[in-house]
Each structure stands twice: as C-alpha cells, then as structure tokens.
C-alpha cells in the first residue's frame, strides 16, 4: 500500500477496486477522477446577519463615502490601504498580511441574486444557490460534492447540525467542540444498534462517529483561535474532509456598529490566521471564501449603525490565490448610482465568483460547475485567473 501513489488513488477507492475485481480495476471510472486536483480543500465561511462590506473593504477613494457614513466612516489613516480606491478595516491585520503576500483578494460590490432585504430569505438564496428563497431544496455545497470523486467528497460542518448550504444527497459530517463528558463506548455501540433500522438516525449517527473519530483535539474551547485550529486539524488530514463550512453570526449592526464590527472582524481575522497556521503545507491547496447574504445601507442610519442593504464584499483567501488585488467594477456611491437610492449596487454576481473559484480549484469545467451549483443563474462567464495554479 505504501508504494501506491496517494494522489492517483486513495485507500478507500483502492478497497473498492479490489472488491470490484482486479481485472476491472484500471478501467474503473474512479481513475479518471484521480487526475483532478483531488487533494484540494475548500472552506466556505458564511457571515450571517448582513456584513457591512463598505466598512470592511472601505472605498475611501470614493468621495461620497465619508459623507454617507459620517461618524461611522472608518479613519483610513488607521486602515491598510489596498490600492488607490480601497482600504482594509484595521481589525483585519492578519488578513492584510495575506493580501501583502498576494494570498488574499477581495471582490467588491458583490451580491447573490437575492434583491430584497430579509436575512432569512437572503441566507436561503445564498446557501441553496437558487435565485429566490426556498426554490431549491438542497445546498450548492452539497451539489459541489456530487461533482467530486467519491473518495474526495467528504465534507464537514463545524457546527452541531448541518447548515443549508451543505444539506442534500451526500451525507455530511458535523463537529463542534463539546463540554459534555464523552459517552461510554458501550453506550455508543448500543446506540448504533438502536438506530440500525432507522434510515435518518442511522446516517446521522454514522456521520457523527466518523467526525468524532477524526477529532484529535478534544478541547471544548470555542474562541476563534481554538476554533480555527480545530477546523484546520480536520482539513489538514490526508484522509480528512475536503470541503468545510464555518458559520459566523453577529454582523447585523443596526446600532453601535463601530465597536461591534471591529470585534467581529478581529474574531474572523484570528480564526483565518489559525486556519492558515494549522493547515501548514495544505494551505497551498486551500481556498477560503468569506461571504454574507447581502450588504448594508450606503448611508449610516440614525442610530450609529446601518440597515439592511444589497451589495457587499467577499473575501477569497488561500495559498495559491492570485491575490493582492481588489476586483471591483465599482458602481460609485453617488445617490444616482445607488441601488434603489440607498444601497451599494451589485456589479458582480457572488454565484459566479463561487463557481469560478471552486471550478478552478477542483479542476472542473466552468460550465459544468455553474450548471450544477447554480442551475437558475449560470449565464455569466467565469472569472478567470483567480488562482495561480
């Protein structure tokens, strides 16, 4: 087994091939998959609550920005200037380092196809990959798994349950650190028998046990650094999950935005740095997308915050991201350029960005991937050159 090239074929496939009969082995469809980027990792970090793109990647070069934001405008002397138009929020210090080493890029004025302002519908569209809420019953991440070779389609949600984006045909694990005493082996075994005839519980239990066996860090810490480290420990494994989702909340800053957004971004930044450090060499093959359901109003509201808006910013991070740039067909913030006179007008389709990144990463044809992930919204041309390799 050691002599077998793991990039060509992994152990589980190998066993499948053996059971299928040696004569058939090399005509098997598994082999053709193996040439794709099989050890690629993809992480989706969702920002639930509508993150304020305009104060995360700040369009300081747009003359309307400071006027619209008033006291909420970020002081650019404290922020990292990304180019002549944009600067990065000062709390994103580690992310700024990734940008400097060209491993991070930002896509601004981006939005999913959703154009109203309900968090819950917006998140549903973002996660299912439909064009309207509740139109699709499974998530685009689960459909992504269907395009990967069976040996490489393990996915995990770092949560106690599986979020919408990962729900669907393919079984997905979930794991979150627990402070409860572990159940005895005897009880675990008996529970497994208890669920043997119950399709739903049996499959949940199998996924739970798989994730549990993989967790070598059983610390129950939930701080961003420990959480990032834990996520990285799963993804760094050669036989671990390839696709993962992390949920963050608390972005709905109707009031007290300055302090709250700074704290939120600091946590996100710390978690990303911990994932980067924990992945080691695997970081080179990893892409992270950070995105939110929609942005916030261009102007500040009357209570030190912002209300629900439309366009926002997405982050793309990873070892071979063709980074160090902000991609934006910038619509401008003057009143006539705002969406419905109040929000940043979206000029880039978030779905297209996701399809382009995952397609390039996993080596899947752009048309095929966008048809599968976003069946209702795939007429846009893929964005080229997002990854270096």
């Amino acid at each position: 087994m050691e002599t077998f090239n793991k990039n060509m074929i992994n152990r589980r496939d190998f066993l499948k091939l053996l059971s299928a009969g040696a004569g058939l082995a090399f005509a098997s469809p598994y082999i053709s998959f193996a040439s794709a980027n099989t050890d690629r990792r993809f992480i989706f970090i969702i920002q639930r609550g509508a993150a304020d793109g305009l104060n995360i990647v700040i369009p300081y070069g747009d003359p309307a920005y400071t006027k619209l934001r008033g006291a909420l405008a970020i002081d650019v002397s404290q922020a990292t200037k990304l180019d002549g138009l944009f600067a990065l929020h000062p709390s994103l210090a580690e992310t700024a380092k990734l940008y400097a080493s060209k491993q991070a890029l930002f896509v601004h004025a981006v939005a999913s196809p959703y154009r109203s302002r309900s968090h819950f519908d917006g998140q549903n569209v973002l996660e299912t990959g439909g064009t309207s809420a509740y139109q699709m019953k499974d998530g685009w991440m689960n459909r992504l798994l269907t395009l990967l070779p069976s040996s490489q389609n393990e996915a995990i949600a770092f949560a106690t349950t599986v979020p919408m984006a990962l729900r669907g045909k393919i079984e997905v694990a979930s794991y979150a650190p627990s402070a409860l005493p572990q159940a005895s082996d005897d009880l675990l075994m008996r529970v497994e028998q208890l669920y043997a005839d119950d399709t739903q519980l049996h499959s949940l239990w199998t996924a739970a046990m798989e994730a549990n066996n993989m967790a070598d860090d059983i610390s129950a810490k939930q701080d961003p650094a420990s959480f990032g480290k834990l996520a990285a420990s799963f993804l760094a494994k050669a036989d671990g999950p390839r696709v993962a989702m992390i949920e963050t909340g608390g972005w709905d800053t109707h009031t007290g935005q300055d302090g709250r957004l700074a704290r939120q971004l600091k946590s996100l930044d710390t978690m990303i740095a911990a994932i980067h450090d924990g992945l080691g060499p695997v970081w080179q093959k990893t892409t992270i997308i950070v995105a939110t359901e929609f942005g916030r109003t261009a102007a500040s509201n009357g209570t030190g915050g912002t209300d629900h808006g439309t366009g926002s910013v997405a982050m793309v991070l990873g070892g071979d991201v063709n980074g160090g740039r902000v991609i934006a067909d910038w619509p401008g913030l003057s009143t006539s350029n705002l969406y419905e006179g109040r929000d940043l007008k979206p000029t880039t389709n978030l779905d297209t960005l996701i399809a382009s990144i995952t397609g390039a990463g996993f080596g899947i044809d752009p048309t095929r991937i966008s048809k599968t992930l976003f069946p209702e919204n795939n007429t846009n041309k893929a964005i080229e050159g997002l990854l270096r390799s």
Partner: protein
Amino acid sequence: MTNPTEMNNAAIAVNRFGLGARPEDTAPSDPKKWLLGQINQYQAKPASLANQPITVNLIKEYAEQQQEMRKMDDAEKKDTKRTFRREIKDTYQEAVSARAEAALATSTPFTERLVHFWSNHFAVSIEKPAIADLAGAFEFEAIRPNILGNFKDLLFAVERHPAMLMYLDQAKSIGPNSKAGSRSAEKQPDKKRGLNENLAREVMELHTLGVRSGYTQTDVTEFARALTGWSIAGMGKDKGVNVEVNGFVFRPMLHEPGTRNIMGKNYSQTGSTQAEAILTDLANSQATATHLATKLARHFVADSPPASLVDKLTKAYMASNGDLTTVYRALIEAPESWISTPAKFKTPWEWLVSSLRGLGKQNLDNIKVGQILNQLGQQTWRPGSPAGFDDIAATWAGPNALLRRVELAQRLVAPLGDKLDARVLAEKILLGAISPQTKAAISRSESASTGLALLLVSPEFLRR
C-alpha cells in the same frame, strides 16, 4: 425514516401536543377533551414563576446602575460593570430554570407548549446583555398572559415591551423631522440621529404578515417613521411622558410628524395611535392569518404541514378576528393533526423537558438547564436572529447534535441508578408507541442506567 412506530391518540395528545408523559400520569381517555380542557385550567402565573423579578423593577435597576456608573472613575467602573454582568447572568439563569420548572410541574402541558411557541415566534435574543436581564420577564409578562386571547393583544404587549424595543433597536429610533430630530440636526449636523427600521421590518416580516407577502421597502420605512416615539420608561429624560404597563412610554418629542402611507392606506393619526392603527391592520390581515397558521401547523404537526390544515387554521383566525383559542380548537379538531406517524423531530428544549418529565423529575435539584441547553445547541432566548429558532428537523437532527443528546442522556440518568426500570418506563411514557427493536435494545442493556439512556435517545423518544 423506515417505519416509525405509530402513535395512538393518547400518545399524540401527550407527546405531540404536550410536553411528554410523566411516570405517574394516566393516559387521557378522551385525548381531545383533555387538550381542550387545558385552555380553562391554564395558569398565566404558576407557582414556579412567583418569585421572578418584574420588568419595571428590572428596568429601574438597570437605569440606576447606569447612573451610578457615570459617577465612577474608570477602575471602579470596570469592577462595577463586572458585578452587573454577573447579576444579569444570574437573573437569566434563574429565569431559564423557572421556565423549565414550570414545564416540569404543569398539568396543562399543551398551553405551556403554546407559551414556548409564541415566545419563539416573538423572539428576542440575549446577545445584547440588557436582553439577558429582560428575556424572562418578557416571556412571563408579555407572552404568558396573552396566549389565549386575541392575537392583537399579544402583538401589542410584545411590541411595547422594553425587551423587544431594545432588541430591535426601536428605543433609539428618532423621527428626522421630530422635535428631537430637528434640534439634534441643528446642534450637531455631522452626528446624524434618525430612523432605525429594524423593528418595523421584523414586525412585518416575522411577527405579522410574513416575508414575500406584498409589502415593500417603502412600507417598511413608513412604518418605521410611524413607530418613532415608542420607547422605554426610565431610560432617558421622562418629562411629559406617560409610563404605561411594563415600562412602555411614548415620547412625542421623537415622533415623526405627518400622515403615513402603508400598502396603499393612509394613516393620519398623530402620536402613538398611528403605529397602533397600523399594528391593528397588520393583525387583521389575511397574510398574517396564513403566516401564523402555517407556523402553528408546522410546530405541532409536520415540517411541511398539510395545506388543508393551514387552510382550516387560517379560516378560523379570520372568522374569529384573530381569536387564538378558536385557532387552537381548530387545530385540535382537525384530523390532519392526528396522523399516527410522528413527523416532528424534537428540538433540544422539547427533548430535554420531555426527558426530565419522563424521568419523573418534579424540580430541577442541581440540574443546570441553562447550561445543558447551551450544550445541546439551543440556548434559551438566544436564537441568534429575530426569526427565532427554526422549527424543522433539518435544523436539529444533525450528526453532532445527536451525539450530544447521547452524551447528555448518559449524564441525566447517572444519578438514578436502578431506581427506575427502563422497560416499564418505556411503555408508560411512550404510551405503547415503541418498536420491538427499541424494546429489545433496552432490555438487553448492561445496566439499568444504560437502559434509561437508550430510552431517551430512542427513535420513538426523539420524535413526536
């Protein structure tokens, strides 16, 4: 799900509509009558909640604390802040325990479940520290007394409660052309103070009409203008305001003057009555009826409830002008509510409450319900969003979530030793709805406590 075990009507009444059987309970001989009878026996303020602090006092304390802190230096302030935080945490944990004790002790579990339903429909979240202080009082004073009356009264009590006004940022919203707004614009033209549309949007989207029911962004903003002035007593200068029940005040200085137009109708009222008129129309709307009917049917019967059931509840609501008891009656009378296969996967709260009841717990002793629910992924009054906790299996039936229940079951039964026989208990609390496989697994277990743990995590007990 392969062949979930069928439930008889008594099992359905007790486990689907109630909070789970207790070992000493006798199965209701007339399940419908048993449920309907609870409407007359419901206690808005049961003994378990008798010592809970009331809203007006909590608000007063909070305001006093804030005032005290203003006089302190930074070091002192930091210490005091820490003490206050600890006190708020205690208030919260005690309220959660009281809520759970009420659920263990109640002899009207159906109406108790309705309290939990409405409290989640009108969700507040303790992410904001002040809400942790008030969340219990909000449920006990705004929700509990109003679950059997007209929806409009429940709606008014909820939207005026300080916890809601604070959670959805209403207390800070100011009409740009109100007296306070104009004055602030003159004094500090850069420090803009004005509207916050958070409460207005969530009232329409979550509390009444429901999303995609035809209102527009303009309607939301107009409603936000009408709501300006709705505020909390004791949190500012209270000259010339009338403190009403539960700490609500209307501050005319903040109210945006003028007629509002919402969904084609003009509201020319002045002052607080303007938003009241709008809320009343929202409560009487067909969209609201459908929205509430769908949520009730989803909560009690199935994740995707039968359209015929939703229709019956909607009609009951409209025909009775929003009388909630009429809607509950329609729910109980409908044959769709009595399908014998369990279609609901219990939420962590439902599972924990039914487990404790099933184990015969009369009170909590040393069980820290607040912390346990946090571990199970459903920290009470912390749904993370104003939509409240989801009410479908996909949200709760997760791999890791299931493992947590197993871990917790083991811990809950540990102190019981062999005081209970799981085989006998299983028959009693599942009212016969138990599969041969589960029976066999329980009877084969190596110890009495393992048998009890298996019962609590059995497919039959996880669903209702």
